[in-house]
């Protein structure tokens, strides 16, 4: 439950600066009231305003807590309307760079009937925003947008009821526009939301079995009545990101704050024997070496001195007696020879009789594919700042799951949860379970040990080596064609090194938890999955297996969720193989896929299949696809060109991509000159924001397909920076990207068109589309990611291209 209090003047000033907007102060002036917990957050925030903290700031003490959870069943927890007829929205999400903050404001402003620029949004502050779980699963709009819409509609309904009482007329006699309620037929009779409720509480209880189901009794607007949803409004967070005024989590500073750097084991699984603290005592401002188990950090007054101390500290480590993992070049052989720790068969495991069908097939095709470990490799290495003042723990973090970070840290430190809070701030991109989790725990642990606010940041080599990794896969596929070139049987086997897949903010698997010796009762089993397509294949068997590497605990090869956790891996194999089958059938790759999508079936996938067909056709039309089988006749020049298609669904979103490549025969270099993407994610909140998200998604997939591979010897990761772990750069950006937003719904004008999510789907199939284009250009099939020059050149030479 939120309560109200007056905001001190210095906090008003600080918040104005903090938010980098001029509207904040006007909001507060207009309301005279504010949510107490929000002001409490702001009372700490002033210290962050300026590195050289002002006297006014120093007078403000951090609040003592406890930090209660806002009650999601109270309308006041979501929406505050001020006397000046502006609104603040409080949502339990975090914007990882896809502009979801702007989208949330659009959703809520539209249902509330307020102008977008009269609204403001607060996200991911565990003390003031309801727990919607932060980010993940491409669910921002798809799942969490719904309660936001419903509570905003409910607030509108309550305000109309208030106007009805005030004017003694029934609700249906009023109309609402931009926060002003007028009597139909007599616009002179009007009242604003601010006049009705500004500075007062709604005191409206909501219902719903969980936060996702939160609702009042109001109906939502039909899609056709939306005025703000569907508009490409500019993102509010972009100007302060461009002029340098935004305060990021890396900028979090409070008086008395000190700097820490970690000292990692030089070998995976190494054991700490001893530390020679005298090796760093002479460093100016040296405060302390903190160590527990195999976790070691140094703390200094100044950041550069902490870095120096972390490099200079003499630590005696014991190397494990046996190798921790195979060398990366031996990884796939190791995986193929390992005994699975678990075997799963997706539902349904078997369709028809695949063995008999294969035996009777006119043509049987087999192929194996390999996909490496890939890193998050956050651009801004993991960081957090923790303040232990007043026996509390306040963590300033860009962790996308602020709420779980709070719970995890409370468990890790043995503190009551209501003494811990997380203030989410903007940060470097977070496409899943990044090391921001790890750094949040470390900052809190160090702050408790040192008794002062501690800021910790990982160094580049730490981030690239020790962050969690998207798991490596090997695949075996067999397919059978009949004499007409129809796919009659498919057998799919996926094997992944996903054992001990780490969860979000789990005190037992977070890196410091591991290094201090905490263990869960059992490692997570991990898992793969079936191909995400809607193809109708009459005889089908799919098996997925998990294997483990020798070292399970305290390892830098930690499998964890990386954007679309196993989607790009599986789609690389499955969509490459569909292309191989099309080529064997001498069929056009688009036509072959459409044939598989139009097959007769009695399953319940008609809706998704119809949309899949619409999206395949939209992509082919946008590209200008010419119907012919792959590969095309080999060119004579040094540059060979070709095009490839790939298709998938993710959750309910459908994506089709077509890549046009240039392959350099002499160097093996692949340039994706053009990318076309057709994308159906249902209701679109902000079209330009969606396009930006899809562009980034496409290129993230391209980076993973062309460049990215974690490399290691038998006891450590050897890809540790941007040279040894290369990613896409400006130099290999496509010259042209065409994105078509499709509404393939069989009933496209339905008033309840839902949104399906866009944060991850489009990265899934880029590697497959590119591999298929390379094949079209060269006749050579590349079955291992990434397609670096050397690998492609070797394949071209082997095939005498």
């Amino acid at each position, binding site marked *: 439950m939120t309560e109200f209090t007056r905001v001190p003047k210095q906090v008003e000033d600080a918040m104005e600066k903090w938010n980098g907007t001029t509207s904040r102060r006007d909001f507060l002036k207009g309301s005279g009231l504010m949510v107490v917990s929000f002001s409490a957050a702001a009372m700490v925030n002033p210290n962050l305003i*300026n*590195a*050289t903290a002002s006297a006014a700031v120093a007078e403000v003490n951090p609040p003592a807590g406890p930090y209660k959870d806002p009650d999601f069943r109270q309308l006041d927890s979501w929406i505050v309307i001020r006397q000046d007829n502006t609104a603040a929205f409080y949502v339990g999400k975090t914007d*990882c*760079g*896809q*502009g979801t903050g702007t989208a949330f404001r659009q959703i809520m402003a539209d249902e509330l009937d307020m102008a977008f620029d009269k609204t403001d949004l607060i996200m991911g502050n565990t003390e003031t925003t309801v727990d919607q779980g932060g980010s993940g699963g491409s669910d921002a709009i798809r799942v969490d947008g719904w309660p936001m819409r419903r509570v905003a509609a409910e607030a509108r309904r309550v305000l109309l009821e208030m106007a009805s009482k005030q004017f003694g007329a029934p609700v249906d006699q009023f109309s609402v526009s931009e926060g002003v309620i007028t009597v139909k037929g007599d616009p002179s009779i009007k009242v604003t939301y601010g006049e009705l409720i500004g500075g007062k509480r709604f005191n409206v209880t909501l219902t719903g079995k969980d936060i996702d189901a939160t609702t009042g009794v109001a109906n939502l607007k039909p899609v056709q009545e939306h005025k703000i949803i569907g508009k490409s409004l*500019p*993102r509010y*967070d*972009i*100007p302060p*990101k*461009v*002029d*340098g*005024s*935004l*305060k*990021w989590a*890396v*900028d979090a500073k409070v008086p008395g704050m000190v700097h820490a750097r970690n000292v990692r084991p030089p070998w995976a699984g190494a054991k700490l024997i001893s530390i020679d603290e005298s090796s760093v005592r002479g460093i*100016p401002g040296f405060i302390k070496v903190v160590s527990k188990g195999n976790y070691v950090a140094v703390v200094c007054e*100044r*950041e*550069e001195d902490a*870095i120096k101390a972390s490099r200079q500290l003499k630590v005696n480590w014991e190397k494990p007696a046996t190798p921790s993992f195979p060398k990366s070049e031996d990884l796939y052989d190791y995986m193929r020879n390992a005994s699975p720790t678990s075997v799963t068969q997706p539902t349904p495991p078997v369709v028809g009789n695949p063995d008999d069908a294969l035996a009777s097939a006119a043509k049987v095709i087999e192929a194996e594919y390999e996909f490496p470990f890939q890193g998050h*490799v*956050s*651009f*801004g*290495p993991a960081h957090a700042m923790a303040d232990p003042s007043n026996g509390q723990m306040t963590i300033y973090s860009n962790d996308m799951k602020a709420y779980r970070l709070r719970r995890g840290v409370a468990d890790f430190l043995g503190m009551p949860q209501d003494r811990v809070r997380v203030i989410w701030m*903007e*940060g*470097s*991109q*977070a496409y899943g379970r990044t090391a921001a989790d790890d750094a949040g725990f470390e900052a809190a642990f160090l702050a408790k040990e040192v008794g002062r606010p501690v800021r910790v940041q990982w*160094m*580049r080599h730490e981030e690239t080596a020790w962050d969690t990794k998207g798991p490596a896969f090997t695949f075996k596929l067999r397919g059978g064609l009949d004499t007409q070139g129809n796919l009659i049987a498919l057998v799919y086997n996926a094997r992944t090194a996903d054992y001990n897949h780490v969860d979000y903010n789990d005190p037992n698997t977070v890196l410091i938890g591991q290094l201090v010796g905490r263990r869960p009762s059992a490692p997570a089993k991990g898992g793969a999955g079936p191909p995400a397509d809607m193809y109708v294949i009459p005889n089908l068997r799919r098996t997925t297996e998990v294997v483990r590497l020798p070292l399970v605990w305290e390892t830098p090869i930690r499998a964890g969720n990386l954007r679309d956790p196993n989607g790009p891996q599986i789609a690389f194999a499955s969509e490459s193989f569909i292309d191989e089958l099309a080529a064997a059938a001498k069929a056009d790759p688009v036509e072959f896929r459409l044939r598989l999508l139009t097959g007769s079936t009695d399953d319940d996938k008609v809706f998704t299949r119809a949309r899949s067909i619409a999206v395949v056709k939209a992509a082919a039309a946008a590209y200008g696809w010419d119907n012919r089988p792959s590969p095309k006749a080999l060119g004579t020049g040094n540059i060979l060109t070709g095009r490839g298609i790939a298709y998938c669904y993710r959750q309910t979103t459908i994506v089709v991509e077509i890549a046009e490549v240039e392959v350099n025969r002499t160097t093996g270099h692949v340039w994706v000159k053009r990318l076309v993407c057709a994308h159906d994610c249902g209701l679109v909140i902000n079209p330009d924001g969606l396009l*930006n*998200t899809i*562009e*980034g998604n*496409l*290129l*993230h997939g*391209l*980076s993973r397909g062309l460049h990215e591979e974690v490399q290691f010897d038998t006891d450590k990761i050897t890809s540790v*920076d*941007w*040279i040894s772990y290369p*990613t*896409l*750069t*400006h*130099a290999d*950006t*496509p*010259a042209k*990207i065409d994105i078509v937003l499709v509404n393939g719904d069989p009933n496209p004008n339905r008033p309840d068109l839902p949104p399906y999510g866009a944060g991850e789907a489009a990265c899934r199939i880029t590697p497959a589309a590119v591999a298929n284009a390379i094949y079209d250009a060269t006749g050579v099939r590349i079955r291992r990611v990434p397609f670096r020059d050397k690998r492609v050149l070797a394949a071209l030479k082997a095939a005498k291209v």
Partner: protein
Amino acid sequence: MSKFTLKVNGRTHTLDIDPSTPLLYILRNDLGLQGPRFGCGLGQCGSCTVLIKGLAVRSCVTPVSAVRGAEITTLEGLARDGRLHPVQQAWIDEQVPQCGFCQNGQIMTAKALLDKHPNPTDQEIREGMAGALCRCMTYYRVQAAIKRAAKMMAAARRASGSEVIA
């Protein structure tokens, strides 16, 4: 420790500091600037970029002793008289950033590129920007924004009849 005078965004600061300290930490922790950010500490990614004598310089690997007395411009110093630099405006017009963490490097590198090549070819943009990395992969919009900024700057030059734009 030694005394240094640094000129940053038109203001002069005197600091008593270890001369080997990378400029980045002084800008961020002593001068309270936050445009330049730590990304790698190796001069590989560009997130710490500042402008010195028209060049895009990686402040994470530049000891403060090397920039004594030089005019240093950070992201915060690009705007003039309350107006954003055309590069910044083009970034907003094209809605370039996603998370935005790398955009200091993108914008500052683009500014230096446009000062050298006022009307850059696609190839000059690709090569000139190749060292400014982005993990959200906003490259496509960055390249569009550079072309837009080039046009805005050319128009401003024609209007003023000079080369004074920032």
